């Protein structure tokens, strides 16, 4: 295994910069979504990952471009980190014909096959068995790809998680379950859903799956865990489960903050903000002398320009034609 810590310094630096930039780009995109949402032109629910960027960035940086990923309702970060097309995502949020689902899906349904992002859907847990099936087919067809199933901790409560984990373990599938444990399912805290004396990763361990827990707000730590997991899965040694502890900053669904409505405390939120994956990592790179101020400023400008262009294009793009309503119900064979 090549963990970042053991890489030669220049490679490690390149990785750190890549992780930071990946996180910043995700944050800027989602902040732009939050800003534009009030314009009432993105007429779909949006589940933002602000505060959770390190998981997506660290995981996807350990994947090959041809590896596959699937996700759930909170998928913008995963899609972007995997290399999903930004303009197609923003256009999809605007319901436009140029969107990644041609306006059929909206924020909760993202896809970019060219980037290996096979799909995200908002029925909790539903992509877990499908991702397991992707890995199964790769194994059957003797491809050396790895599949990632992104899930929230609530998805481990669904039966399909366990049915999939059992099968993946049974067949030693090249699959990594990446579970972002952000402590909540909508407004429901862990203690009304799972026993306090059992950690989430232990569920996977019970299925005979190699399972680890890590700091989901530390992109290097995530990358290190994922790097090892991918090597394990690709070598045919079976699936891996990673539980990444993190926290969503904004409301479950929508652009705002909702700490005042009573299901969690402002103090808890502030404590997690202290652990901002981006500020913390930036600070760390500054300390270690790996941070290039000028380069980062230029990167931020470039990303802002890229995002502005994606929104402008999405706003100008045509809506799907009414006559296309019945297209794609069945595949033409």
């Amino acid at each position, binding site marked *: 295994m090549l963990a970042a810590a053991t890489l030669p310094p220049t490679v490690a630096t390149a990785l750190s910069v890549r992780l930071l930039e990946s996180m910043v780009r995700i944050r800027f995109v989602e902040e732009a979504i939050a800003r534009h*949402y*009030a314009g*009432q032109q993105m*007429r*779909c*629910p*949006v589940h933002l990952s602000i505060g959770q960027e390190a998981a997506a960035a660290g995981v996807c940086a350990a994947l090959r471009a041809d590896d596959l990923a699937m996700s759930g309702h909170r998928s913008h970060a995963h899609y972007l980190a995997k290399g999903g097309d930004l303009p197609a995502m923003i256009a999809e949020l605007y*319901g*436009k014909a140029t*969107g990644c*689902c041609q*306006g*059929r*899906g*909206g*924020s*909760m*349904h993202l896809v970019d096959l060219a980037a290996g992002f096979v799909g995200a*859907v*908002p*029925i*909790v*847990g539903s992509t877990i068995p499908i991702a397991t099936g992707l890995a199964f087919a790769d194994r059957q067809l003797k491809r050396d790809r790895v599949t990632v199933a992104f899930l929230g901790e*609530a*998805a481990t*409560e*669904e*039966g399909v998680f366990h049915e999939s984990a059992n099968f993946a373990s049974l067949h030693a599938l090249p699959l990594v379950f990446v579970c972002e444990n952000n402590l909540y*399912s*909508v*407004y*429901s805290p862990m203690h*009304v*859903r*799972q026993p306090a004396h059992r950690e989430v990763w232990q569920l996977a361990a019970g299925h005979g799956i190699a399972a680890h827990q890590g700091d989901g707000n530390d992109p290097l730590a995530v990358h290190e865990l994922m790097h090892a997991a991918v090597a394990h899965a690709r070598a045919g040694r079976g699936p891996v489960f990673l539980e990444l502890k993190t926290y969503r900053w904004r409301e479950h*669904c*929508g*652009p705002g903050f909702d700490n005042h*409505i*009573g*299901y969690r405390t402002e103090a808890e939120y502030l404590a997690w903000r202290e652990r901002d994956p981006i500020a913390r990592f930036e600070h760390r790179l500054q300390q270690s002398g790996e941070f290039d101020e000028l380069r980062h400023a230029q990167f931020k400008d470039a990303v802002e320009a890229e995002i502005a262009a994606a929104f402008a294009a999405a706003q100008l793009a045509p*809506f*799907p034609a*009414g006559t296309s*309503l*019945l297209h794609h*119900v069945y595949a033409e064979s």
Partner: protein
Amino acid sequence: MKSSARELTYAEAIRDAFAVALERDPRVLLLGLGVPDPKGFFGTTLGLQKQFGADRVMDMPCAENGMTGVMLGAALNGLRPVINHQRLDFALLAMDPMCTQAAKWHYMFGGAMKMPVVFRMIIGRGWGQGPQHSQCLHSWFAHIPGLKVVMPTTPHDAKGLLLAAIEDDNPVVFIEHRWLHHLKGEVPAGHYTVPIGPARRARAGRDVTIVAFSYMVLEALEAAEKLAEDGIDAEVIDVRSLRPLDQSLLLASLRKTGRLVVADTGHSTAGMAAEILAIAGESAFGSLRAAPRRVCFPDCPTPTSPSLSAEYYPRAGHIVAAVRATLQRPPNDDDLLVPAGAELDKPNPAFTGPF
């Protein structure tokens, strides 16, 4: 109990029914993802946990299939659970316990046990609900012997049918359309039930019978107003109970009008509207003076883009057009116009997203 009526929204009426049921019967239990949440499950459970305790108004793990089965056991063993789903689509994870277990329990054990459980589901629509948050699959449940299926339209019926569902000794599927939640109407205080079965005549008329389900009753009433401007007198029937289905009101209406348009919130193929047409064909064939019509969703999943709302969701205008056809009146292109400024993907004018 003396009943005095007051204006409540549909969501408040649901909450009121829960409060009455929890108060009257200690066996009643509410369970579901977010049931005690600060937004009160679209306002339908606000304050109930505080009032009745966390062991009777419960959140649950994200495990629809397993938890539904667990509640069947609880129902067999002395409780009267209501399982709540914020979207009908989430309840589909529990098709086995609902349709293959609960629906058959009384029958297959020769009447030895009763299954007093309510499966409550909300149908979404518009604002990005899209392919996986707006399925209207009431017809699936209505297909299953052993289940009862209700879809109330008014606040009054929402409360009365919910209480009837909770008090019924059989599994009842209780389906609410999200776009009815803000609707206001007279709701008596205290306990009352609306029996499961009878349909409701929402408007009396002579020329045509419009049979509608759930939210489409509102569109049908609007259609009837428009038709009245053209001198057409439409009768509107709110089915409200899909199983058992009230044939007598439907047939009496058809014998009077001889014309039938059915407006459903779901797909037409193999759906409830087809069932109504079948009843008309089997039992009122001689009374029909024109081919009946269906106004339903197009045969494709729900697209998310707001631009396709006008194409996708049938409105009052579609019902008006169908009625004209049954009366052999010339079509009027204006029927399907979307009024300027109308936002067809919003449940009410105050809605600004996100959910």
